[in-house]
């Protein structure tokens, strides 16, 4: 994985010193809260309902075990002993004291981390496929390009006061695991007719109160032009994006108002002026970055061992875990393991400091010392020897981190909701917890199959409800929590937005409603159909009819 050199390290230390001075000016009264707010936000520090929240960037979701242990240490020393992994592959600490934040950032800088660009109207922390570099279906490692984007976007002097926040996601696989079509820019690596690898460039995707699927403005961008093309898009957006209305300021509205063809013309015209300038990527630069992502020194490992075979035969839960949480790796004898942060009754994405330390130990012991964060709020151990899977599973089970539910009904994405967030209309976490309690029979969960439930506590859609197979949106009706249900959303390359099924439901009916929708699917499904497939075949009517049928 990427390791800072002296320049990166100097930069992040200078950033801590700058923020320490800004906090000092705030605490002494030299800066008002109004003046301080944008400064703290660009360092990831929010003021929420009960306390400050610090969001720490995890670039494209990659963590070393040293970094994960440091996050655990911060949770223990400065927070309440846990952290919350987010849909942007970051981590949030929800109970932070302002005066301690410079020290926290200094401790993070020691392990090459920071809170930079996790907030504010700038280019946010870039996200990528959590299986980058190890997925069997990968065309090229998106981390190389994500790191190049990370450096280019770091305190970009022209693009730090954009009309609105700006999110870029990269995938190097035909099976998109980075939800690139719901980002401001989505980059998909693919091969053209000549066998060259480049990027399909999509712009103007996003969720929030106006969900839109991104449009392709360039089918194939040669790799050396990545930064000049991004700069051209951002320059067009910075000049023409709306600033009169915060709800119309994202690039998706500009693309929608101009049309994708006109947007492409403006970007291409700007790009022609700068494509062969200093942003053109030299082979040396790319090679220098790519060297950081060379595969680790894998030892030969058998695909099966007697212990593995025996456990698989005798233990149904181990079989389910292999099926749901273990994926094919590029390298024979190895596997990609997803650590579920969605146990029964748990808060999606929450992890205790002790669990962080324990997972770091496991990654060092079995997995080349590397950990990833997924946008669905789980962790990944990307390089596990298959022979070690039984031992790993046993230990993860002891830690309550081996729930065999990845991409299944209880692998729920949820925003922090009204338990923490000042913007929320309703709670998200308790709804997620109650759904996991309702579906606590893992045999049944596996029988139901792939089903992605996503819950947002307000229309800002941090829980991605628009692209949930079942989406749940918290709304406020005269001071009471209600939940609006959508069906048929998807964030994959065949992306779609969910359709509203009918009137919002009160809090005490929402969990049974999910049960009702699942029962309808199970009754209607044909061979091998997932929930989404059945929905796309039969439409919303049968689901609606049964959900709102008089008791």
């Amino acid at each position, binding site marked *: 994985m990427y390791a800072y050199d002296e320049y990166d390290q100097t930069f992040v230390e*200078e950033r801590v010193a*700058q923020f320490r001075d800004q906090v000092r000016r705030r605490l002494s009264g030299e800066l008002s809260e109004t003046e301080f707010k944008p400064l703290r936000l660009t360092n990831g520090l929010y003021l929420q309902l009960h306390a400050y929240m610090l969001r720490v960037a995890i670039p494209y979701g990659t963590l070393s075990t040293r970094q994960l242990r440091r996050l655990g240490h911060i949770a223990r020393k400065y927070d309440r002993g846990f952290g919350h992994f987010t849909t942007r592959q970051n981590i949030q600490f929800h109970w932070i004291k302002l005066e301690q934040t410079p020290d926290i950032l200094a401790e993070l800088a020691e392990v090459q981390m920071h809170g930079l660009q996790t907030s504010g109207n700038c280019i946010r922390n870039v996200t990528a496929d959590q299986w980058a570099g190890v997925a069997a279906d990968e065309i090229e490692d998106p981390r190389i390009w994500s790191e190049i984007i990370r*450096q280019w976007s770091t305190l970009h*002097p022209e693009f730090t006061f954009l009309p609105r926040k700006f999110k870029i996601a990269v995938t190097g696989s035909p099976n998109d695991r980075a939800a690139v079509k719901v980002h401001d820019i989505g980059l998909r690596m693919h091969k053209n007719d000549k066998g060259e690898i480049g990027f399909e460039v999509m712009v103007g995707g996003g969720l929030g109160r106006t969900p839109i699927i991104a449009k392709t403005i360039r089918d194939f961008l040669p790799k050396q032009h990545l930064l000049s093309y991004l700069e051209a898009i951002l320059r067009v957006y910075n000049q023409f994006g709306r600033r009169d209305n915060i709800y119309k300021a994202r690039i998706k509205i500009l693309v929608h108002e101009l049309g994708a063809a006109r947007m492409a013309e403006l970007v291409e015209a700007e790009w022609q002026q700068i494509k062969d300038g200093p942003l053109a990527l030299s082979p040396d*630069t790319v090679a220098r970055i790519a060297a950081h992502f060379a595969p680790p020194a894998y030892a030969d490992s058998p695909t099966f061992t007697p212990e593995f075979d025996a456990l698989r035969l005798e233990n149904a839960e181990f079989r389910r875990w292999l099926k749901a949480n273990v994926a094919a790796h590029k390298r024979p004898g190895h596997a990609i393991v997803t650590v579920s942060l969605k146990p029964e009754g748990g808060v999606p994405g929450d992890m205790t400091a002790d669990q962080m330390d324990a997972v770091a130990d496991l990654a060092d012991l079995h997995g080349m010392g590397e950990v990833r964060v997924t946008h669905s709020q789980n962790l990944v151990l990307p390089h596990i020897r298959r022979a070690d899977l039984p031992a790993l599973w046993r230990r993860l089970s002891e830690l309550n981190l081996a729930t065999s539910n990845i991409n299944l009904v209880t692998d729920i994405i949820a925003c922090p909701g009204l338990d923490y967030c000042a913007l929320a209309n309703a709670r998200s976490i308790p709804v997620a917890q109650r759904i996991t309690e309702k579906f606590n029979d893992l045999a049944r969960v596996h029988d139901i199959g792939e089903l992605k439930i996503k819950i947002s506590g307000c229309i800002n859609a941090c829980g991605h409800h628009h692209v949930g197979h079942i989406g749940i949106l918290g709304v406020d009706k005269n001071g009471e929590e209600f939940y609006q249900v959508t069906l048929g959303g998807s964030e994959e390359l065949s992306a779609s937005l969910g359709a509203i099924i009918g009137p919002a439901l009160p809090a005490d009916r929402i969990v049974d409603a999910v049960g009702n929708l699942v029962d309808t699917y199970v009754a209607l499904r044909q061979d091998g159909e997932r929930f989404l497939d059945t929905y796309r075949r039969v439409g919303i009517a049968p689901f609606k009819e049964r959900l709102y049928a008089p008791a």
Partner: protein
Amino acid sequence: MPLLKNGAVAADPWHKIVNGEALPPDGPVILPFERWRAERETLLGRNTPLGVRLSNTHSVAELEPDLDRLEVIELEFPKFTDGRAYSQARLLRERYGYKHELRAVGNVLHDQLLFMQRCGFDAFEMEKADPVTAWQAGTSAFSVFYQPTGDGRAPVERRRAAGAKAV
């Protein structure tokens, strides 16, 4: 309002013409862009230094024919969070080769000076009581820069490449 140039408070000999104001017979003047556009022919015949104040919704390309003649261009930050003038500044410097004074006006704050400087501004009107201290703190906070811009600072990638060659 103090004018900062090269980190020091500088004298400001320029007279800013407001809408409808008659031009003084001589002396350097800065005109709103609309006035400049309307009276361009006459103004170009004037034997005194000329400047233009361009709002952040105009294209800098409109000034291209006159960049040799203009000795000040003012770009506006109506709020510090409105970053359009950063793009205007880079285009003026890097695309159109504007060489004279590029002045940031409006909500110009301590913590944005470095971004402005990197985009090509070299003069700053600041409300701050102690602009020189703000300048020093604001522009010296970082020694490492990741983007190539027209300000002449070597981006990290060039320093890395030079280091790699030196080894």
